């Protein structure tokens, strides 16, 4: 999975002409996007009634040649492809959101003065006729006021030398510049020899020089300002320009920024500990960090309540703790459904729901690799809070009270708060130490050794005491399976365990019947 981060690069002191050109581009782009949204309003609303998933590709196919041609009146030829992509993305996300929230309003990328007054009077009329209540009216009118006149950022869908945008580098001054294609041929500006003493090279494979010949230009070149971290990332991009992807031109507080999406290099460090992250009984999450041997290194609760966890993000906290301990994060699969977490009545509202936990797992899937750690492992959460972390006994009788866990088999006792995360942290070790069972049953003509998951069968002569022939046959069986594609994940897991085992005898458990 590729991991991206966004570099926020300021366009450093653009002159009046460049500012005007950028403002014009932002306005035209916003108008064109709103035009598309208005044109296909009925079709998109119709699509929202269908129960099938609507892809961006399907929405793109909806745009006919005539409409695409009519977009030219906005002079958006330099970013037409990007505009169409953004339109399909906005429409698709609206449709996806509407499936879960039917009240979702139709997107309004840009509201000019006319559209604003029309939309506002519609809203007032609906309120007067009683179609919408006061709360809905307030919400809509606030939204309209917020949107009025706000320009949409210009999206550059690709990194290219002669269209959309690209970065330039002056190696003598060690400065970076942005080359932005904002005008069509009709609006191009004349450009002469540049006498600034710049020696600009494209941030591109082979670093070619930028042509400085006089002529009509459809682009502007603007110096960039940024901090140390961004500088390091740009230096990295100089070595490997393919890391640079799409970007956006944004105007914020009279300043212009280029938000560049850059691919992060994935350097995965080997995990030395395991970190189990479970839903917390008293709200938030609890985590346990275990050494490879299973010794508990750290055990804590992350946030006290759900409200806290929603503000900034718990996934960042977990990623930081995991990075600090170089931990392999282990999570509950399916959002912790059936984990049998005992929730006291007073904590019911504070606890992490299955949906919250699923969202967290989704975020960690890219945040952990961003920190150089392997992605999280999700393991079955069935009866997680009723399973003893020490001996693995899983029974309802391990629950003494709502807050106290005590194993009826080995005597391990702890607060419920920690049991879930400790079980998760130790689960990988348990998987590794678990042996593959092979059932040995007595038949009339000897013994039959079999494993149903693998589909392995081996017959041994009667009165045998030495299982060496069976292990030899198993070794050959595992070897033969290496050449075939194993479709069943369970079967693959068992095969992999045996295939990687240095000694089959130590990885197999014989069940005598």
């Amino acid at each position, binding site marked *: 999975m590729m991991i991206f981060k966004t570099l926020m690069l300021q366009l450093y002191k653009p002159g009046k002409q460049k500012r005007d050109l950028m403002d014009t581009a932002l306005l035209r782009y916003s108008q064109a996007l709103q035009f598309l949204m208005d044109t296909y309003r009925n079709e998109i609303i119709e699509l929202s009634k269908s129960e099938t998933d609507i892809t961006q590709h399907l929405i793109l196919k909806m745009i006919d040649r005539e409409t695409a041609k009519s977009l030219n009146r906005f002079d958006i030829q330099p970013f037409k492809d990007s505009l169409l992509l953004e339109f399909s993305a906005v429409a698709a996300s609206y449709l996806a959101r509407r499936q879960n929230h039917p009240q979702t309003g139709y997107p309004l990328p840009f509201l000019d003065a006319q559209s604003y007054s029309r939309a506002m009077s519609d809203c007032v009329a609906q309120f007067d006729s009683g179609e919408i209540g006061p709360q809905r009216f307030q919400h809509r009118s606030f939204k309209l006021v917020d949107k009025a006149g706000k320009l949409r950022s210009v999206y550059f869908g690709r990194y290219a030398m002669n269209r959309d945008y690209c970065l330039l580098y002056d190696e003598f001054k060690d400065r970076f510049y942005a080359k932005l294609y904002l005008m069509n041929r009709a609006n191009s500006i004349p450009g002469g020899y540049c006498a600034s003493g710049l020696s600009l090279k494209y941030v591109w494979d082979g670093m070619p020089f930028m042509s400085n010949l006089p002529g009509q230009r459809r682009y502007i070149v603007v110096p960039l300002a940024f901090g140390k971290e961004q500088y390091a990332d740009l230096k990295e991009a100089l070595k490997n320009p393919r890391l640079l992807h799409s970007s956006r031109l944004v105007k914020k507080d009279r300043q212009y920024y280029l938000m560049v999406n850059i691919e992060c290099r994935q350097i995965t460090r080997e995990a030395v500990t395991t970190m189990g992250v479970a839903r917390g009984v008293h709200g938030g999450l609890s985590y346990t960090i275990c050494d490879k041997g299973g010794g508990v290194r750290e055990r804590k609760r992350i946030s006290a309540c759900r409200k806290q966890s929603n503000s900034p993000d718990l996934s960042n906290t977990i990623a930081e703790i995991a990075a600090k301990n170089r931990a392999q994060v282990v999570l509950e699969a399916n959002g912790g459904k059936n984990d049998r977490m005992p929730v006291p009545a007073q904590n019911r509202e504070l606890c992490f729901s299955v949906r919250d936990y699923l969202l967290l797992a989704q975020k960690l899937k890219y945040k952990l690799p961003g920190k150089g750690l392997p992605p999280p492992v999700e393991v079955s959460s069935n009866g997680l809070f009723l399973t003893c972390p020490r001996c693995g006994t899983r029974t309802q*009788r*391990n*629950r003494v*009270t709502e807050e*106290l866990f005590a194993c*009826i088999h080995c*005597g391990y*006792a702890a*607060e419920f708060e920690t049991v879930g995360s400790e079980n998760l942290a130790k689960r990988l070790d348990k998987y590794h130490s678990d042996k593959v069972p092979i059932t040995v049953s007595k038949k009339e003509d000897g013994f039959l050794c079999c494993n149903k998951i693998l589909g392995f069968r081996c017959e041994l002569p009667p009165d045998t005491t030495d299982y060496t022939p069976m292990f030899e046959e198993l070794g050959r069986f595992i070897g033969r399976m290496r050449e075939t594609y194993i479709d069943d994940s369970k079967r693959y897991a068992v095969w992999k365990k045996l295939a990687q085992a240095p000694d089959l005898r130590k990885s197999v458990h014989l069940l005598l019947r």
Partner: protein
Amino acid sequence: MDISIETYSDSVPKYHEGLCDDQIRIVRDESGVAAILADGRNGGARASLLTSFAAKMMVAMRGSGASIDRVADMIAESQPSGGKKGKAGNIAFTLILALFDGTIRVEQFETPDVILLRRGRPVELQTTQRAVQGRTIRSGKITAKKADMIVAVGNGMLTAGKNRKLKDGWNLKNIETYMANAYDSRMSAEDPVRLLLAAGSSLSSGKPASDLSALAFRISCLRAT
């Protein structure tokens, strides 16, 4: 009714102390089995001596045929005066006598109530109180039934979960529930003791703040007469 009595006891000393101040002695004779769990309270050499003395006193008196209440009175009377309740210099004890005819007598002084499990369910043991030199001794008497289990713990066991984030801690009620959960008809007397000590040790994170001790009687019927 003739019964068979199985007993087991064990202790875990306080963290960083080699010797356990709690003393447990089990004496078996032709009439039945008697056991004492003498709790050294907050530890120290004096408590250690007193618990050893109490245990030896019980062994000697039972040997000479003294009744269990007499033994309890003697131990209570022999305690040095001046020791405050809950402080070092005073010991607590639980005496249990199970006779083969099915009679079970319990004498307790400042120790947690014994847990009686009847077919796995906790049953309240009715007790009476008497004062001996200003000290209150609780005594109870029951007739044993098949698969009865009697579990006694020292005061240290109740302090095991005090550093944990538990609202009620590891109190007697929780211990009773745990024992009821763990009960199995094939359980030996050793099992509840092993489980309780493991749970106490686990709740203390392997570093008990005071001695953990437990004593269990397991009754099974041989034949009804």
